[in-house]
């Protein structure tokens, strides 16, 4: 971490960058927040640890509008989002100084709480163990058991775009990316319906998934527009919650890098990544493997076609 701070201070000092976009230590052991740093003094609060899961690439949209370069720290999977934003001309490459930071998987406080940890006072990362001091005694967990879901299907330790790299990364993926999707696909229509009914009925329409999503960068979202019937704001009926999530997933289909931020931020723990992965899986199967954010110039699958594409009837045919 100190290496990151030193380099940031250096770049600020020599005027290469006007500000630094990173993570600031929180007031609890697990709640750092995205923040801008303007000088070495600010940087005293800089932190980079297992809880820095927030993907900073979307903040670059605003930072691109400011004068001077912004130093941005990106984890390997964040670089996919950055690339995608670049492809869509939402961020300015010349305004960003990208330091690729190492990542060994990020932690999910909900996973920690799920394991019965209450009253957290201190969290220490020691190799593959987490030592947690709580009001009710000490707990020890394996790092892996407390990781974000997305880290179990890690896209790899390679940064797709950067100016310099600091730190080592490790691939943390051990899970099957489409495992959960396949489980659901194998269910009967009744069971699928019941499963999503249970999950989606938790939705409170707080829009956290949308607002955190690097692909959801429309200036005005269709769900905020009072021009149409779409700004219903609340899930008054079970239809509305399906509508919101299907359409949101559809609008990012072919652009979603599977960064997993939507699932990370959902206050109700809805596995929102299932929708995105379903689209990714279909796209891979029907139109050829495609990873959004892999590069900045290929055409997205929904802005492209071939003459031989499958007919929509294939959905019914594969049963």
């Amino acid at each position: 971490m100190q290496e990151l701070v030193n380099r940031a201070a250096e770049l600020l000092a020599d005027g290469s960058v006007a500000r630094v976009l990173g993570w600031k230590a929180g007031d609890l052991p697990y709640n750092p927040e995205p923040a801008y740093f303007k000088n070495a003094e600010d940087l005293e609060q800089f932190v980079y640890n297992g809880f820095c899961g927030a993907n900073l690439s979307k903040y670059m949209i605003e930072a691109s509008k400011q004068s001077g370069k912004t130093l941005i720290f990106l984890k390997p999977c964040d670089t996919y989002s950055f690339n995608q934003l670049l492809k869509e001309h939402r961020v300015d490459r010349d305004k960003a100084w990208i330091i690729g930071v190492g990542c060994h998987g990020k932690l999910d406080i909900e996973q920690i709480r799920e394991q019965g940890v209450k009253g957290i006072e201190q969290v220490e990362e020691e190799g593959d163990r987490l030592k947690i001091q709580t009001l009710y005694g000490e707990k020890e967990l394996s790092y892996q058991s407390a990781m974000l879901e997305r880290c179990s299907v890690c896209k790899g330790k390679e940064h797709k775009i950067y100016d310099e790299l600091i730190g080592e990364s490790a691939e943390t993926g051990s899970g099957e990316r489409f495992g959960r999707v396949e489980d659901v696909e194998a269910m009967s229509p009744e069971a699928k319906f019941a499963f999503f009914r249970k999950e989606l009925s938790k939705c409170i329409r707080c829009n956290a998934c949308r607002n955190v999503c690097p692909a959801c960068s429309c200036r005005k979202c269709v769900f905020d527009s009072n021009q149409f019937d779409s700004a219903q704001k609340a899930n008054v009926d079970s239809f509305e919650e399906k509508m919101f999530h299907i359409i949101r997933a559809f609008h990012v289909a072919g652009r979603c890098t599977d960064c997993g931020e939507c699932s990370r931020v959902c206050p109700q723990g809805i596995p929102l990544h299932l929708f995105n992965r379903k689209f990714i899986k279909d796209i891979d199967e029907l139109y050829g493997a495609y990873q959004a954010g892999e590069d900045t110039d290929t055409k997205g699958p929904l802005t492209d076609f071939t003459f031989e594409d499958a007919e929509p009837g294939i959905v019914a045919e594969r049963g």
Partner: protein
Amino acid sequence: MYKIEAKNLNALFQMIAADQELYLPVRSGGQVNFAYWHKDAEVDLETLNSVKSPKDAFFPQSENLYTVKRDAGRMSIEPEELKNQKFVIFGIRPCDVKGVEVLDRVFLVDPLDTYYAARREHGTIVSMACSEPEETCFCKVFGIDCGEPAGDVAVWKVGDEFYWKPVTGKGEALTAKVVSLFDEADETKVEAQKEAVRKIADRLPYSNLSLDGWDGGALEEKFDSILWEELHKPCLACGTCTFVCPTCQCYDIKDYDTGSGVQRYRCWDSCMYSDFTMMAHGNNRTTQMQRFRQRFMHKLVYFPANNDGMYSCVGCGRCVAKCPVSLNIVKVVKAFQDRGGDQ
């Protein structure tokens, strides 16, 4: 005071639910939220805070106000039936009970909100003292004693026993109905538990938070502070904090055309949304900084100004736990505390 063993709780719920609705913390899809009790519901009284606050019981996320029908070119208005059945809400934490008191200050003042009032009239609150507060809790800062909940009936969980104490007339009435399941009990164990939980509350990291300087008179100083510009930066403008909050009461009124009539319903809204104050001639809060500031100013300055110094925050800690970018009211108060308003 009465007591009942944990293994008999189900019988208690069944008895309460025999002639009225029972609303309590239920685990579904991995999350605990207040929901109607049924015999297969997975009741969870261990989890400290439900994800959504129990304010839904009195102020639902969406509710129909009335329906407009058109018949032979003539409009008619059918108001929605008010809540006319008694219900019990079980297991509300002390902070959330206080949250209901805050909502009362909004909906029960003139002009009365009859939809809310009807629910309040028909609802009996069975509150439950905390036994294991979490690091996100700061109810103590608002003078709430998490060992001594308000409400119509107060309940304490001590080991495998639940202690039950009716507090109000409504509480007595409910107790009379179910007293056959209870044993008489004295308060010794409960008192010990209260002491223990107060000790924990003192040790919580946020319990020393100071609200000095936050009151109805602090408008100008706080409003003009340059800290907002910095504090709001990570804010995503989502509505998580407002929707999990037990006291946020802003709402929107919207229309839904069903094809056979228009339902006018109200639903929670969030001051964090860009269209919150949008009107045809423009928007008086054009930046996220202004919207962010509004939420905290309302809770800590505007609301106390109108309500004899009562804050519209109860320290439940939901926003602390749920904000996607770890922003929250505590960080705001601390920033002012550490650095003064005008730094």
